[in-house]
């Protein structure tokens, strides 16, 4: 099972990040870029269950150790970021396989969403939430720019961003959850919708993670 950790920005829990690579001592995690916007510092919290959602978890935790991470590479169009921190040893970690291109999971497939949905409330409880791929989307994010996404039927919570979307049949990492549906007609305060449909969620296709992983290793000088 993928290893997913709570993510803190500026000392406050904001969402989740999933381990996507380890080379030598450098551990890389993928998350949603928008979680990192207003903070110069990023930390990965390490709860006692080690990000393994299938293990029992003590709850509630008041605090847990954390390590500082750096932002290695980002794709603003896809709302993706890859973070890096140095592990104490070179022992391998569980890393989910990542598809090389979009569209390799069929509409109707079952997925599990792993993350810390109540992280912004101070919770370190990791949950496994079932979902179904309801559409393979190509979002027009800007003139000349299209980003592949998965549309899921799955319930989102305040801290769902950065959660890992894992295929239940093959345990591949298919997406990084980023948000929920906000119908265009809902009432808004500025850009913030005050009504959303949290049962329809969007995840960025994970095939874009691999190039950020390589860019981060290059920046770190790890071959």
């Amino acid at each position: 099972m993928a290893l997913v950790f709570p993510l803190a920005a500026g000392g406050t829990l904001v969402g989740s990040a999933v381990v996507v690579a380890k080379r030598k001592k450098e551990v890389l995690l993928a998350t949603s870029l928008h979680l990192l916007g207003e903070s110069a510092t990023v930390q990965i919290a390490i709860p006692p269950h080690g990000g393994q959602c299938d293990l029992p978890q003590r709850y509630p935790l008041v605090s847990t150790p954390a390590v500082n991470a750096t932002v290695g590479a980002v794709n603003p169009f896809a709302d993706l970021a890859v973070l890096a921190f140095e592990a104490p040893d070179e022992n391998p970690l569980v890393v989910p396989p990542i598809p090389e291109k979009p569209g390799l999971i069929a509409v109707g497939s079952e997925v599990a969403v792993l993350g810390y949905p109540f992280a912004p409330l101070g919770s370190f409880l990791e949950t496994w939430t079932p979902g179904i791929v309801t559409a393979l989307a190509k979002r027009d994010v800007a003139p000349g720019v299209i980003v592949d996404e998965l549309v899921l039927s799955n319930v989102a919570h305040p801290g769902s961003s950065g959660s890992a979307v894992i295929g239940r049949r093959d345990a591949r990492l298919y997406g990084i959850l980023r948000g929920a549906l906000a119908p265009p007609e809902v009432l808004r305060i500025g850009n913030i919708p005050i009504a959303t449909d949290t049962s329809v969620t969007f995840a960025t296709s994970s095939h874009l993670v691999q190039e950020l992983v390589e860019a981060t290793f290059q920046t770190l000088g790890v071959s």
Partner: protein
Amino acid sequence: MNAVLDGLSEVELLALLPASVAGAVKGMEQAGLQWEQVGATLAATPTSGIALKGGGRWPDRLWESTKAEFHVFLCTESPNYADLRQQWDALRKKSSTIAVSALSATIGAQIGVAAGVIAPLVIWLALVALRIGKEALCRAVTQQPPPAPGQS
């Protein structure tokens, strides 16, 4: 700081962007967006289109803040960038990656954002400066209103 851009090449700077980001920037240029619009889109797209989940907030004026600090580095003798200016030649000789990373880190420290988050904006500004020239970029940024106090 006339020589700040010496030794940087457009090809090398583009190679600092992840391939999909470089491709998207190219796509926006081919669609006719001006450099200001490309920068503003780079800074704003993480929040576009859906109700985002997670704590934290994306800065409203990230493009304006980054651009203003890039201007301070490139076009003024501000002491905020004195250390970086002293080291710049040595950093640039090591590699463009190291130089641009150091510039992103210094700008990030000024505006309170992680260096990696603004790196694509800094690379884009360096690219624009190479294309239109330092003086033209300095003039273009000076003619725009600065960000409001407290906004980043």
